[in-house]
């Protein structure tokens, strides 16, 4: 595809439910990042994949959050037992590789609302 895509665009769920958010990176990009952007704030790092493996998951807030990238392309962010505080826009970005000179290209995000 032309850019990073994320589905769904919006997700409304009830407290305690399980949700999955999907990210399709730019074709050929080996590095993938998830960020969370709460209302009125800047994005905050969650997890970084290089290929299939999570190279840095230091930003995941707790063990309810988990992400996978089984084939080194599409990634899924999974949130268990959602809480109202999880409501935010979840942004995905990809870059050509791990070299820090490579630009991160962002998707449009998934707005998660937990009622």
């Amino acid at each position, binding site marked *: 595809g032309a850019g990073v895509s994320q589905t769904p665009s919006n997700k409304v769920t009830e407290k305690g439910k399980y949700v999955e958010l999907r990210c399709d990176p730019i074709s050929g990009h080996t*590095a993938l*990042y998830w*960020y969370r952007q709460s209302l*009125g*704030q*800047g*994005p*905050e*790092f969650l997890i*970084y994949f*290089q290929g299939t493996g999570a*190279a*840095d998951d*230091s*930003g995941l807030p707790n063990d309810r959050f988990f992400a996978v990238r089984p084939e080194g392309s599409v990634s899924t962010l999974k949130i268990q037992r959602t809480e109202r505080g999880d409501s935010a*826009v979840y*942004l995905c*970005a990809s870059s050509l590789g*791990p070299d*820090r*000179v490579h*630009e*991160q290209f*962002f*998707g*449009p*995000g998934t*707005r998660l609302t937990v009622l």
Partner: protein
Amino acid sequence: AQTVTQSQPEMSVQEAETVTLSCTYDTSESDYYLFWYKQPPSRQMILVIRQEAYKQQNATENRFSVNFQKAAKSFSLKISDSQLGDAAMYFCAYRSAGGNNAGNMLTFGGGTRLMVKP
């Protein structure tokens, strides 16, 4: 840990005028990258301009330029000849230039909302 601070929650500029957005950061590293991103209501982050810390020359991209003061840890964005399409949230971001896989992420400031008056 690095921190990025944007002290202006909102800024306003008249169309065709010039506006400067402020950003300061804190780091103990000597080599890093600094960025300005634009986020319109569509939510998609768009890279506006990038500066490598080892370069003394300030980066410029058309109407956008930066004033990078490494000793002061300041990185402001100047938008010249402001256009209605420049209205958006602007985020300053930091990225470490070296080290292992940890620290490869972007660290963002809290953002500045720019309004452009016709």
